[in-house]
């Protein structure tokens, strides 16, 4: 019997998509032929459609961000597997507006290829298409890693901010330029004390000693570049935040947007405790945590870990952040 609550016939993702579309029928529809989710009521001011996607198992990413003020469409693949290029292509045709469609793509080979192929098809069809690549994972920031930094938690911030910008009627090139700039100002670090349960085996994807933490873990259960001894929360958050601040380098006294993200099995108690520690540190460093999201936003099935994301903001970014949003997972 599978470790997950499912029927065990490969129907978990399609069942979940049906359940999701039924629960949020006021916000979106599920295309039954191609398996993408489409916002029902995007802002009429949009000139460019916004689409994202990637493997399932990261919920609420991306399906939870479809709706007014954020994504026009999301293409979920199977668990930890890229969506099919046709899914992205058809979703893009449905989401495209007068000036085309913008893809928000996390930097993973499979996603890059499938979104890329869809973009080629869209070009062939005469639909303008551009891409914002999110590559915020500080743990994979190394000259040795040819594929570049992975895309992780920062994706949700980039999608929120781009959604608000799209609602103001920006064109395709402007949005792409903005998104690329936002992604460049954003870095994430994740730690885990236990791996997710591998859906195929029902066992942890990797095994950690109780006295260890996986430092710099990804969202597919890949092991991290390093394993560190466990330490109390204060020093751990300080270590992570210091690395992020060095990388993001916000100007003294300037605002940052903070994301404290649960990877699956970590409790809200812990996430809010992390947030308290992080804010105390930012206060000491003279950096203003101007906006905060604390919760599960980009997960890795039931991994026991959390990620911290910092995005160096300015007034315009904060205005975009504050703009109304109405999706299954973000709402203000």
């Amino acid at each position, binding site marked *: 019997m599978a470790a997950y609550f499912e029927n065990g016939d490969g129907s978990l993702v399609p069942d979940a998509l049906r359940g999701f579309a039924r629960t949020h029928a006021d916000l979106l529809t599920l295309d039954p032929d191609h398996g993408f989710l489409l916002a029902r009521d995007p802002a009429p001011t949009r000139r460019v459609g916004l689409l994202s996607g990637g493997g399932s198992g990261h919920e609420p990413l991306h399906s939870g961000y479809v709706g007014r003020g954020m994504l026009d469409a999301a293409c979920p693949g199977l668990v930890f597997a890229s969506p*099919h*290029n*046709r899914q992205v*292509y058809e979703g893009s045709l449905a989401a495209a507006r007068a000036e085309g469609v913008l893809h928000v793509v996390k930097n993973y080979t499979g996603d*890059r*290829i*499938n979104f*890329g*192929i869809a*973009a*080629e*098809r869209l070009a*062939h069809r005469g639909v303008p298409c551009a891409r914002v690549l999110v590559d915020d994972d500080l743990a994979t920031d190394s000259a040795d890693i*040819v594929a570049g930094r992975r895309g992780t938690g920062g994706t949700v911030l980039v999608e929120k901010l781009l959604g608000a910008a799209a609602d103001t009627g920006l064109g395709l090139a402007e949005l792409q330029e903005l998104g690329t700039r936002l992604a460049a100002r954003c870095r994430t670090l994740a730690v885990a004390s236990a791996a997710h349960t591998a859906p195929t085996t029902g066992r942890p994807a990797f095994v950690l000693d109780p006295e260890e933490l996986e430092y710099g873990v990804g969202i597919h259960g890949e092991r991290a570049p390093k394993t560190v001894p466990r330490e109390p929360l204060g020093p751990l958050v300080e270590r992570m935040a210091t690395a992020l601040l060095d990388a993001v380098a916000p100007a003294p006294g300037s605002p940052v947007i903070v994301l404290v993200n649960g990877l699956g099995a970590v409790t809200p108690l812990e996430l809010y405790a992390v947030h308290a520690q992080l804010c105390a540190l930012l206060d000491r460093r003279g950096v203003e945590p101007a906006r905060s999201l604390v919760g599960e936003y980009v997960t890795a099935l039931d991994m026991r870990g959390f990620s911290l994301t910092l995005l160096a903001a300015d007034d315009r970014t904060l205005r975009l952040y504050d703009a109304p949003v109405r999706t299954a997972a973000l709402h203000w």
Partner: protein
Amino acid sequence: MSTTTDTPPEAFSTDGWMRRFVESTRTAKGRLTALDQEVGDGDFGVNLSTGADSALRRLDAARAATAGGAAAGMDPAAPLEAAATAFLDEVGGTSGPLFGLLFQSLAAAVADAGGATTPALTAGVAEGLAAIRRVGDAAPGDKTLVDALHPAAEALRAAPVGTPPGRALALAADAAWTGVRGTARLRARRGRSSYLGERAEGVPDPGAVGVALLLASAQAVVDDPGDRLG
């Protein structure tokens, strides 16, 4: 699908090309599977023949829909479009949609030229290569199908103006096969076999073989236009 009226006289049958290609993927399927077992996950043979079979079904459906059911009456881009859609829509793995992009570029070039002429082939292969590189980010030497497609594109580009399609395709297929042999000496830097390190050395890249088979099928149909499958 519109029928064309002014196919250039030197053009060859894209319908015949695609049918010949389907045939040769069937023949090669086992060998391609074995190659991908050595350097990848062993599904390349299935991926390629799934695409080819679906392309054939689409071709037959298109021909049935054409007046008289004759291949001659069809838009010369249509068989390539059918293959493009088949590979893009129905094949998993990395290579399927990459082949789809190549067919899509070939279809566009053939449509522009009004038929499968040497300039159309040259443009289509060059644009297909560019699309595949934009998408997959592989350079020559990374041990991928680019190592067959890139020399073929170079050979076509270098062919003098007026080279007939049969000659141009012979040059392109030769260059592709040379590229295939070269991949055996390479260590993979892209795709699944990059994880194998030196273990993949000595084995040619299956995707590159597939590209060479595609060009060789075209050459064969020009040399023997009495398409046995048609």
